[in-house]
Each structure stands twice: as C-alpha cells, then as structure tokens.
C-alpha cells in the first residue's frame, strides 16, 4: 500500500496578521509549524500503514525551508519525504497547487492520499478535493473515523455540521481528515535521529511533467478581494421523504427562489 500524506508548512498561531493593502499574510518573524490538521493526516497514514502494510511518503510544496516540516514528519515515523520546490511554483493559488501536487503524486505513485481538511493560514479546504479531481479518483472530505479498512475498500465517517455520513469508497482514494480522527503521536527518538540523516527528495517542474502555463501565478485564477468571516447560515430547511420526493421538493424550492 503506497500512502501519500500531503502536508503544508504554515505560520504558527493565530497571531498572524494580514497586510490590509495586499490582503495577504504577514509571515515575517512568525515560526513555522506543520499545519495542525496535517498532523492528523500523518497519524492516519501511520495507522493505515500499521493495518495494511506499505510505506508512508510525506509530500509538501514550498520553499527549501519547508524541509523542516518534512523532517518532523519523518521523526513521527514517515518512511520518506518529498519536497516540491521550484521558482515556477511560487504564487500558486489552490488550483495551481492542486495541479502541481497531483502531478507530483502521479509521478511518485499512490494508493491512498491523505490531507488535513484545510490549512490554518488559507483555510480554503480546497486543495485536497481538487487534487482528487485532477487525478480522477474519488475523495472523501472531513473523515472523522475509520470504520473498516482493507486493501481494496475503506468505510469511513464523514463529519458534517450535524452528525456524520458513512461513506464506503474503493482504493485509490483521497481523504481529507479532521482532528476528531485521531491523536497525533509525538516524534520518537529513533525517528528524530533518522530525520536528521534522511535525504529529502526534491522534485521540480520538469520532474513531474507539469505545463508551465498551469503553474504558479500564471496558473492561478484566484484573486483575493477581501477577507472576512462568513456569517453562519441561519435559515435552513431539511427535506424529508424518499429521494424522489426530496428531489421534487428541492426543485420546487429552487423554483420559488427563482434559482432555476
């Protein structure tokens, strides 16, 4: 079983400030950590490896100093680490990131891909599912529990605002995980020693067969106009009945709202 865990190095704490002129994060002087949700993805990868066998490869895209995050993942027990680093990747939005990451994952080979549900700096929760689309494989987001795992099938709980869905999926698959899934382990001493000596494999744009126009700023249609906390949705309606009845009700609702 080839397990790939995608991680991101992010600035520590909620202390991070936003530059009001560019609407981007001020990262100077803020220590970097592994995105907290990604620690749960690493733990999930190590757990799946212990159940199914195989290897855990951690992958990140970022500047050379992102190597620190990869070494930390190795100290927790990951087998190997790959750093995607190239000037051409700079300025990527979620789409360009997902394109680049999925190209790398295809180059490395995979059975199960794990991501944290979102990164605490951008908070989009888009890269994981977008990668699955680029790879044309199923994905399950917000995985909060493994109910059953074997080499060909995973049955998981997907945490929703209220309750959870039970989803069965074939492998290969991409999962994004939430913190309810597990308790990330601390590094081990042997792991830390191994991490110190490990050679981090580096992949660049030519290594992963990406097209330049889809990379970095050029490949990023997103423009940040404003950053705000969305209001919690209040007026919600839960439709009941058979799937057919629910679909009919939904069409009526949408018509009455002049959406269709």
């Amino acid at each position, binding site marked *: 079983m080839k397990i790939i865990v995608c991680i991101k190095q992010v600035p520590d704490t909620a202390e991070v400030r936003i530059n009001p002129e560019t609407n981007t994060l001020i990262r100077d002087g803020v220590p970097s950590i592994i995105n907290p949700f990604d620690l749960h993805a690493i733990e999930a990868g190590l757990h799946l490896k212990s159940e199914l066998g195989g290897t855990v490869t951690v992958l990140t895209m970022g500047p050379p100093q992102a190597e620190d995050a990869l070494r930390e993942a190795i100290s927790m027990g990951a087998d190997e680490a790959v750093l995607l680093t190239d000037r051409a990747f700079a300025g990527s939005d979620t789409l360009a990131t997902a394109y680049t990451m999925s190209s790398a994952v295809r180059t490395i080979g995979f059975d199960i891909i794990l991501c944290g549900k979102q990164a605490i700096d951008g908070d989009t929760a888009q890269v994981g599912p977008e990668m699955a689309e680029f790879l044309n494989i199923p994905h399950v987001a917000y995985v909060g529990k493994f109910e059953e795992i074997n080499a060909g099938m995973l049955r998981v709980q997907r945490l929703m605002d209220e309750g959870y869905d039970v989803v069965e999926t074939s492998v290969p698959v991409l999962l994004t995980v939430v913190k309810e899934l597990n308790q990330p*382990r*601390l*590094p*081990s*001493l*042997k*792991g*830390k*020693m191994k991490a*110190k000596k490990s050679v981090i494999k580096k992949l660049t744009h030519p290594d992963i067969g990406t097209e330049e126009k889809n990379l970095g700023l050029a490949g990023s249609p997103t423009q940040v106009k404003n950053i705000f906390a969305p209001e919690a949705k209040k007026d919600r309606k839960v439709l009941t009945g058979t799937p057919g009845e629910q679909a009919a009700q939904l069409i009526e609702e949408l018509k009455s709202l002049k959406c269709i």
Partner: protein
Amino acid sequence: MNYFLTEEQQMLRELTRQVAEEKIVPVRAALDEKEEFPHEIMKVLAQSDIFGIFIPEEYGGLGMGSLELCLAVEELSWACLGVSTTYAANALGTYPILLFGSEEQKEKYLPAIAAGKKLVAFALTEANAGSDAAGVQSTAVKDGDYYILNGTKQWITNGGEASIYTVIAITDRSKGPRGASAFIVDKGTPGFSFGKKEKKMGIRASITSELIFEECRIPKENILGREGMGFIVAMKTLDQSRVGVGAQGLGVAQGAVDEAIKFAKQRVQFGKPIISFQAIQHMLADMSTRVEASRALVYAVAKHIDSGAKDFSKVAAMAKVFATDTAMKVTTDAVQVMGGSGYMREYPVEKMMRDAKILQIYEGTNQIQRNVIGQALIKEAVSRENGS
C-alpha cells in the same frame, strides 16, 4: 549554560521536554488528585523510545548512558515527579539485569523493557530493612531446579503495574550480608501477589505497593549473578541509579523556579510586579544558583560514570544529596515566593514541594548518602597515608 551536549543529547532533551509540556503538564494535577497511575504517559514514553535510552542497541535500545538518562529524568521531573519516579524506578529495576544478567536473561527481558512493553520494579526494602538493607527477612530456598521465595517487600515503586521484578532475598542466613541473592520474578508467578497500595504525601501518580511471596517457586535460572551476590547487585544498582535521583531533584527544582518567576512577573502588589522587589529577586537568585550548581554536579557525575569509572559511590551520593536537598529548599521557596497562591492546589508548586520530600528519603536517605561520602573520605585519607 552550555554543557556541551551532543546533538543527540539535545534531541533527547527536546523530545522529553515536548512530552513533559504536551502530555504531562496538562494532566499532572488530576493524576495527583486521583492518585492515578499514568498509563497514557507511559505509552507515549514507549512510543517515543524513551524507555530504550539506557539499554544497549543489541537489545533494541539506543545504547546511551547515564547522562542521557539524567537528561530524560530531569525533563520529566520538571513536569511531574510522580511520572518521573515511575520512569526512573523502571530503570532502577532494570539495572540488576543490565549489570549482572546472563546473556539469556538479557535477551529474554531487555528488548521488551527497551520497547516500553514491560515495566520493571526493584524490590529490596522490607518492614525491617530500610536504611539497614542487611535486615532483609525474605528467603529463597533452593529446591531442585527452583528457588522457593517467601516474604513481604514493602513500599515497592511500580508494584502491581510492573511485569518484571528484581528481588533481593536471603539464600543463606549464616553468611550474613554474603547470604543474599538477587532474582528476576515475573508477575503472575503462582505464590506472588500484591498487598496494600500505599497512600502517599506526594508523587501520587506513581504506585507504591507491597509484594507478597508465599511459597513462590521461581526457576533457578532466574538468579542474577551467583548465589550470595544479592547485596553486591543491590549496592551496584543503587550506585548507578543515585545520580538519576539527583536529576529528579534538579528537574523539579527547575520546574519550581520557572513557576515562581512566571508568577512573580504577573503578581502586582504595591503597584508593581513583585519580581521588581529585591526581596523576591534575591530569593529567585538563590534558587536559580542552587539549581545551576545541582545541574553542573549531576551532569559531571553522570559523565564520570559514562567514562567507565569503577568506583563512583562517593560522587554519586554527592549528586543525590546536593540536588535533592536543593529540590526541597527550592520548591519550598517557590511556594514562599508565590505566597497564598503557592499554597493552593490551583498552582503546581505545592505539589512540587510535597513531591520533592521523597527525594531526600528514597534510594538511600540523604543521611545514608552522607555516610557513604564520609566513609569514602576516610578510605581515601587512609590510602593517602599508606601511600605516603
């Protein structure tokens, strides 16, 4: 201060501090309050390879020495002495096997200990054998391929939780101190049971129990060394572990200083943080100085042991006495600096003060340590006179 630790030693220190901060500090008050054994923390220590530090690599350990063990014990003690006592008692129980075990015994027991799968306890103390270790009453009588063990061990750290016990018992009373032997006893051996669990003043996350042996038959190959070596095993073991108790003192004292400084910076009286008053600064200065002196002594003695020194009873006793007397003084002063708040269970220093007291008592009281130092001084003086 720069103690010239190697990169691996710094890594070990960093990791144990991380365990201390993330896994121990948040639960220490509850473990103390409930007198609860720290099972979860032991699992974390096992997973982090911290149980394997002092075990040779050929048995699955990291092959490190006394200094590394002291660094780990210091950091754990910084957070909770109950937890560090559980951990350190495991090392204490393992030393007889490491120092005197046969190849077969080492292969059988050490890998599981290194992996943290099996916890160990050392059983010497009895109702009439405390400071006077020669007062051991428990007996082991040879019967064919077995020894039959009878007697009761008292105040045994990890008693009941440990899977492996190294036990001192008398095999030949007529030989006096040369009539004792050391044995490995597995939990679950018929005739081996546990008596009362003690209720203690401090280190309440650790368990302290009675061990009861009634016609307990153990295979003769479980003897450590030879018949009659029991006290040598015990004394060499205690020599080895003593500096670790010093490291416990060092750790808890550092923890208390850190808490006192944090508090003194925040607490405002007479319109100023109390740390701005010389009365407080001078106390903190003395506390910190004592802690740093303890650290220098504990590390130096641990390095001396790791250098392969043969006789280190005296200096190990010095490290134990100095660092644990420091721990008692500094934790008491930390409570004083913090005043009423320090006395309350809401803050950790009253626990540190209760916990620290045991360090002056167990693994040889500080009075016994001074005897050890005193006797060594006499011996040295005599050999100097004879030599001149």
